[in-house]
């Protein structure tokens, strides 16, 4: 990408971050927390997008990385009183480690086989979280709010229950995930990942060990998902095994598809839209997951490129 194109891309993405920052002063309280949640979950979707959108590998097991981050952060806080920074680091480390081990085993398969292996691993993780429920408290889960010390920053004490702290911490995480994804996208590594997606054998014969690149992609993807999981635990105070369930592996696929696979801002758009769709639907019926089903079928039949994917194809070809 030329210098001019890169600046344009960077400006657009920084503008989105700036808009999100400013939005907190305009949003009413209910939406304030929602947007904070959306930003954290969008980080999860961004992680997923690196594997699916850039590298072309579809996983149905990403909930295990999110949950690894969640438990990796939440358990030390709950049982050992670890502080937020340490917990975040522990959560990310757990996700990265799990992704690396999983990748070393599962990347020997591809396509449908990889999908099923990822589903199986994630399901084993979920079942383990239920099996060891003396520690994890299983489905019921546990709350961190009595256990998490406020963040001491520059003399000020920032409690995680405060909306402003939640929002800006979530924004910080989202911004970091977005800029990391952008950096990857324009880097030589990003180019290789996309090439692997398009034609793996040709890429190998042009000097690239595709296994290593796929593993890197998986580790980054899992790491971002774990960061989202750890942040979710720290900011919204709840840790439970529902976040390791299959539905939670399907969500990032749904959000990414809706927003536009392989686009950078697509995950944010998809997460936000689906969050509100589900929110509205759950107010109307207990069968609100019907919305999930319908959206998936509609996307596959008529909008496989998703919202931003269609926008990019029709009007803005320079959008990464």
């Amino acid at each position: 990408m030329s210098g001019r194109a890169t600046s344009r891309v960077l400006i657009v993405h920084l503008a989105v971050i700036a808009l999100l920052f400013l939005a907190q002063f305009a949003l009413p309280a209910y939406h304030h927390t929602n947007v904070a949640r959306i930003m954290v979950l969008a980080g999860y979707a961004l992680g997923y997008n690196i594997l699916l959108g850039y590298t072309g590998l579809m996983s149905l097991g990403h909930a295990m990385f999110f949950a690894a981050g969640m438990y990796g952060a939440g358990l030390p806080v709950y049982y050992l009183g670890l502080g937020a920074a340490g917990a975040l680091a522990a959560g990310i480390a757990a996700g990265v480690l799990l992704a690396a081990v999983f990748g070393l085993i599962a990347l020997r398969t591809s396509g449908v086989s990889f999908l099923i292996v990822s589903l199986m691993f994630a399901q084993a993780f979920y079942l383990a979280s239920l099996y060891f429920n003396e520690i994890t408290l299983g489905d019921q889960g546990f709350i961190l709010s009595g256990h998490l010390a406020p963040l001491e920053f520059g003399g000020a004490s920032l409690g995680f229950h405060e909306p402003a702290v939640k929002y800006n911490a979530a924004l910080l995480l989202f911004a970091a995930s977005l800029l990391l994804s952008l950096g990857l996208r324009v880097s030589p590594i990003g180019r290789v990942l996309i090439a692997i997606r398009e034609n793996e054998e040709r890429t190998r014969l042009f000097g690239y060990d595709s296994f290593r690149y796929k593993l890197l992609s998986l580790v980054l993807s899992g790491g971002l998902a774990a960061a989202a999981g750890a942040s979710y635990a720290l900011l919204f105070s709840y840790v439970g095994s529902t976040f390791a369930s299959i539905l939670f592996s399907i969500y990032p696929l749904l959000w990414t598809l809706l927003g536009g696979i392989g686009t950078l801002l697509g995950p944010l758009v998809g997460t936000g839209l689906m969050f509100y769709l589900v929110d509205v639907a759950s107010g109307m019926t207990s069968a609100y997951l019907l919305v999930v089903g319908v959206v998936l079928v509609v996307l596959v039949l008529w909008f496989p490129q998703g919202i931003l994917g269609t926008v990019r194809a029709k009007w803005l070809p320079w959008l990464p």
Partner: protein
Amino acid sequence: MAAMAAVAPLLETEALCKRFGGLAAVNEVDLHVAPGEIRAIIGPNGAGKTTLVGMICGRLAPTSGRVLYRGREITAMRPWERLMQGIVYTFQVTSIFKGLSCYENVALPAQRGLMRGFATRLALGEQLVADRVHAALDAVGLAGAAAQRADALAYGHQRLLELAMALAAEPQLLILDEPTQGLAEGEIAQLCELVRAISRRATVLVIEHNMPVVLALAERVTVMDSGRIIAEGTPAEIERHPDVQKAYLGR
């Protein structure tokens, strides 16, 4: 002849075999290619030509035998490592990145030589890559197509794109698998010019069915049939060779 024998071969295969079940697709092949040669490999369909070069570039693992490059054994070397040694292969059925722009297609091999170490994998001066990309596209005559999507090109131009990609990979041994297939007359002539230019810097191994091209381009010809080499020599010698005529006519 004597002069050629004195120079160490760039590429050698020793008793190279590839079996699929009971079938020997390549059977005890000893190939020697001198540096700077243009060598053509010809033979009827199913002779094992693509399988042979597949083992040279690393796509396929041999059942037995050895591959030597610059005197070193590379039989177990992975395909991406062979590229770094300068062995570059273009596919019989054009293999490019159809959904990406021509620029991005050529950028992938172009950047490889610039990626040394951790830092250059994270970020590369895009100008360095761009220079290499444009040089390769210019060489094959696709200078104006950089921004176009690869699948928007005509088939002949897609083949040229793959050749540009191969050039950007800085080949020392360039293996072309039926490069003229699907090309129009004018494009074939253009390709021959290009191959002659390339052979000033690299050794070229060409699998071809198009005999006029073989006669015009090749310095030496290796003829395969049913997995074995049945004849080797200059194009003129091969044209007259009785076994070669039998192999082709007997089909």
